[in-house]
């Protein structure tokens, strides 16, 4: 070990004596740019150019469908922002997102605390952790189909509800106006809590046991320990997770598309399904682009808070 050190030092000295040729200096300065070149090109092609294109499209009439589309300024935005369905979609997206993220947090922290309990042996916790992670293994398309079967009027969930007397006859959860939004939110809660749970569990394992020991000697009850130790310690993780989950949930398309398609009527219409239909059902690519740009701006507000929070933690 010490031998290598001496050899290393000797070589540094010999290197320093010779001045590097200018071309090599240039090479050295350019090296990091070589490393980031592929990702820069890809981000340019996959994000910057597409965003420029979609902004361009949003100012055109009949774009894509006809070769000569004419410039209409902000008129597409005006049409979108005066369309009642847009506000219904925005409201549904809001309810869906807040409901999902809130429940993801509550379930995530509850399950993570249970799995972190010192009262159970490790193998029991390993088994339960594997079970709790299960929803994470399935793609949204699978989750959508599975829950269509479970929530079918003749399905197993209605069977339990009817036989236990909660409801009289099987409920059409996904095709009644009154229950569809609740049902898709519930499905999304089931699908999405494991990510919260896993991250919070890692966070819980990082909190020193000493804090809890000291608190219980002072007579703090479990709930007080949770409020005054656990929550403050996990705060940075929780904030990151909540913002990230809001970004992802508000962009959810496949789950809605494959369970209700935004219906019945517009009961579960969300901003992504609304935009998709404008483009690929109505072929109104100009209007769809305007809606897509509005969604982008809303997401960027969330991104701003996320990045500011991440920066503050560094």
């Amino acid at each position, binding site marked *: 070990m010490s031998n*290598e050190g001496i050899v*290393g030092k000797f*070589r540094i000295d010999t290197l320093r004596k010779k001045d590097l040729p200018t071309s090599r200096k240039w090479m050295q300065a350019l*090296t*990091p740019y070589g490393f*980031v070149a*592929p*990702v*820069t090109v890809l*981000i340019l*092609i*996959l*994000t910057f*150019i*597409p965003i420029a*294109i*979609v902004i361009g499209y949003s100012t055109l009439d009949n774009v894509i469908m006809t070769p000569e589309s004419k410039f209409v300024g902000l008129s597409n935005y005006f049409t979108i922002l005066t369309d009642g369905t847009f506000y219904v979609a925005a409201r549904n997206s809001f309810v869906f997102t807040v409901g999902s993220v809130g429940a993801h947090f509550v*379930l995530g922290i*509850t399950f993570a605390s249970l799995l972190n*309990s010192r*009262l*159970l042996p490790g193998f029991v916790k390993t088994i339960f952790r594997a*079970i*709790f*992670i*299960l*929803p994470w*293994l*399935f*793609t*949204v*398309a*699978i989750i959508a*189909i*599975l829950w269509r*079967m*479970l929530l*079918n009027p*003749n*399905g197993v969930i209605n*069977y339990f509800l009817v036989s236990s007397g909660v409801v009289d006859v099987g409920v059409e959860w996904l095709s009644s106006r009154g229950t569809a939004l609740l049902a898709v939110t519930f499905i999304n809660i*089931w699908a999405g809590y494991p990510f919260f749970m896993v*991250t919070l569990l*890692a*966070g819980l394992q990082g909190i020193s046991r000493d804090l809890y020991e000291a608190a219980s000697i002072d007579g703090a009850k479990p709930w007080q320990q949770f409020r005054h130790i656990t929550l403050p310690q996990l705060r940075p*993780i929780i904030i*990151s997770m909540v913002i990230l989950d809001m970004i992802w949930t508000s*962009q959810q398309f*496949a789950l809605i598309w*494959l369970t209700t398609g935004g219906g019945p009527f517009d009961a579960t219409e969300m901003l*992504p399904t609304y935009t*998709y239909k404008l*483009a690929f059902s109505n072929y109104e690519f100009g209007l769809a682009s305007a809606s*897509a*740009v509005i969604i982008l701006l809303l*997401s*960027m507000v*969330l*991104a701003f808070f996320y990045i500011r929070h*991440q920066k503050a933690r560094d």
Partner: protein
Amino acid sequence: MAKTRRAIDRASRVWVIVGLALGATFAGFPVVWMISSSFKKNSEIFAYPPSLLTDGFSADAYLSILTDPEKLRFFANSYLVALSVTALTLVVAVLAAYAFSRYEFAGRKSLNLIILSVQAVPPITLLIPFFSLIVTLRLYNTYQGLILTYMVFTLPYAIIMMTAYFNTLSKELDEAAKIDGANPLKILTRVILPISVPAMVSVGTYTFMIAWNEYLFALTLTRTTDMRTVPIGIQLLMGQMSYEWNEMMAMSVLGAIPILLLFLFFQRYFIGGLTAGGIKN
């Protein structure tokens, strides 16, 4: 004092077990029902009263999927696309993460910020321009079109996670190799990568999952049945005249197997890497 403490522990242990059991039912019952349904006859799916094991128990649904070339093609397509995306993402992310971790250069901060923000760009915003770009580039209904577009989802995470990992490796490793006359690319491939296998496994797993699960772009950027991936394939089963529930459930089980295997093998790496990259960074 010690005795009361033990009594309290016993009481709380009961509550913990009750909580775990309720949670396990919530998480696990739908999955149990999926597996059970995949072994039923289609006519038994909504039988009254429902039961986990029926007289018609058979693996017919699996057989009919595994012997149908059209359905096997969905799986082949998904594997091809997901594995290609994983390989390409790893190469591009490792290069970028190495620069972020080891070099100071003008534009580093801005590029980092851009990569963070790309995570928040909604897929639906990119869909319309991607559609016309992909058509213009003659990549509509091709594997290349899907592979290229999926990288917009996979790269930001992969770079953030890899950078976080490289930052934990001592810079003396690089210095020593540099003194031996190795060029930067050689340092990366011969010195850094061999000790970065855990991080690459975790990034690779995450990337594979994103690509395997993607739905919106696969729906819009491919057209013919022979180009469809598993998530769209499951939907196509639903779109036919009658719902083949047992086959859909069998295909769901088969579609989840690659992810399940990745989890079983790499769970430790994966969760560690995810929390390191997503949260601490």
